[in-house]
């Protein structure tokens, strides 16, 4: 067990405020009942439980919260948000931490999830709709595993489950929409 020395803990009281401002969720309502950790299907893969993550947020332990792989292992299944007796949307808090992490370009436990998110959003920005073969191909290529899931992919092509040609839905309107959103965020 890693012992965190008191003098090493850096408190950042703005962290909880930042989360509240972005998501509208108040992490101080958490009283550590651990219902979220008990129900989390992904906890076996996590360094810290969601409950611990909430405590980090309360104490402003930004580094602890962001360094752990926990935020990158949340599957967004909404179990914690459903069961929280204090009605905190924990999955939304974790999403917010992920967004902060991606904006600050903090190193994730592996960079595949941020890469996937970026690819997806870029794709719909230019194409309007997700193009599955393009996402899988570019993700595998950029993460250095070009043959991952190849057998399954071939089977899906054979069964006509992958639409090989991309379709474009109003690309110019989409690009404009994304740039309006960007402008709006800069204003704030």
């Amino acid at each position, binding site marked *: 067990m890693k012992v965190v020395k008191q003098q090493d803990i850096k408190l950042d009281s703005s962290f909880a405020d930042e989360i509240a401002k972005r998501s509208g969720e108040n992490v101080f309502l958490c009283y550590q009942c651990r219902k979220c950790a008990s129900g989390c299907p992904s906890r076996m893969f996590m360094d810290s439980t969601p409950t611990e993550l909430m405590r980090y947020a309360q104490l402003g332990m930004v580094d602890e919260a962001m360094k752990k792989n926990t935020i990158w292992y949340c599957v967004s*299944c909404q*179990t914690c948000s459903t069961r929280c007796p204090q009605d905190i949307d924990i999955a939304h808090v974790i999403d917010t931490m992920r967004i902060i992490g991606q904006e600050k370009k903090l190193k994730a436990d592996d960079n595949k999830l941020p890469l996937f998110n970026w690819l997806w959003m870029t794709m719909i920005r230019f194409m309007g*709709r997700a193009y599955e073969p393009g996402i899988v191909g570019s993700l595998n290529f950029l993460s250095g595993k070009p043959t991952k899931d190849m057998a399954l992919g071939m089977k899906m092509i054979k069964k006509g489950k992958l639409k090989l040609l991309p379709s474009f839905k109003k690309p110019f309107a989409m690009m404009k929409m994304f740039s309006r959103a960007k402008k709006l965020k800069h204003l704030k």
Partner: protein
Amino acid sequence: MKLAYYPGCSLRSSGAEYDISMRKVCAALGIELVEVKDWICCGSSPAHQRDDLMSVALPAKNLAQVRETGDLKEVCAPCASCYSRLKSAQKRLEDDDLRKDVEVVIDSKYPDDIEVLHALDVITDKFGVDAVKEKVVKNLNGLKVACYYGCLMTRPPKVTGKGQFENPTQMESLIEALGGVGVDWNMKTSCCGAAFALTKRDVVLELTRKILADAESVGADVISVGCPLCHANLDGRQAQINSKFNTNFHIPIFYFTELMGLAMGIEAKDLGLHKHITEVGDFLQERVRHDRCR
């Protein structure tokens, strides 16, 4: 009954048979589906993990498109992820400040009076299980079905408005109307790891294995789903799971619309059953033979 239809990206590609069977079944039931004009991606999980404003704006744009499609007040989203994103955006947009921002982004007014329904809601709540029963010509003859809801069809209840979110029974009532039996099992609302389908395979294989193992242990013949992402994992990854965990799963995974179609006498090939990765052909033939013996 006439409603707007938002198929979503998956139903255009890896979940094609869900789209095919949904349209076939609705046509047979007399439900008219009007595809939303120029619909775009709902943003799915990447949007809410990367860009909070766009995660609300993309669904809002689609809801505005529903208004453009005609004077329709209800939209059916068969994909659980799309359904969840649309519903969740509606909840978030009750906040006036956010709504104003979103209206700037989508450059149109956001319509707040549209009802978002999952395909299962359309069938069981709007059309009615009893009305479906009347259309059954070839009943499922006691087929043991594990009804799998996954995460987003019921959760979080604040967003979906579902009363039974830990132990839903909506799909079971439909299966029973078709002549099948909805088995009692533990994993009906457990997560299959769909958000990590392309990024963290270890997580997906472990979570999917648990679901398959539980269905097998209670003696289910098939699993019935209502989400293309759940289907892709449960149906497509059985071979990978078998080789990783040394198991021997071969459980046919059906969309609930496919089971409806079969019970309503629609041919398997017209429902797109040949597209499944875990073959259902032999299974169906065995079942039919079994029926004849009786």
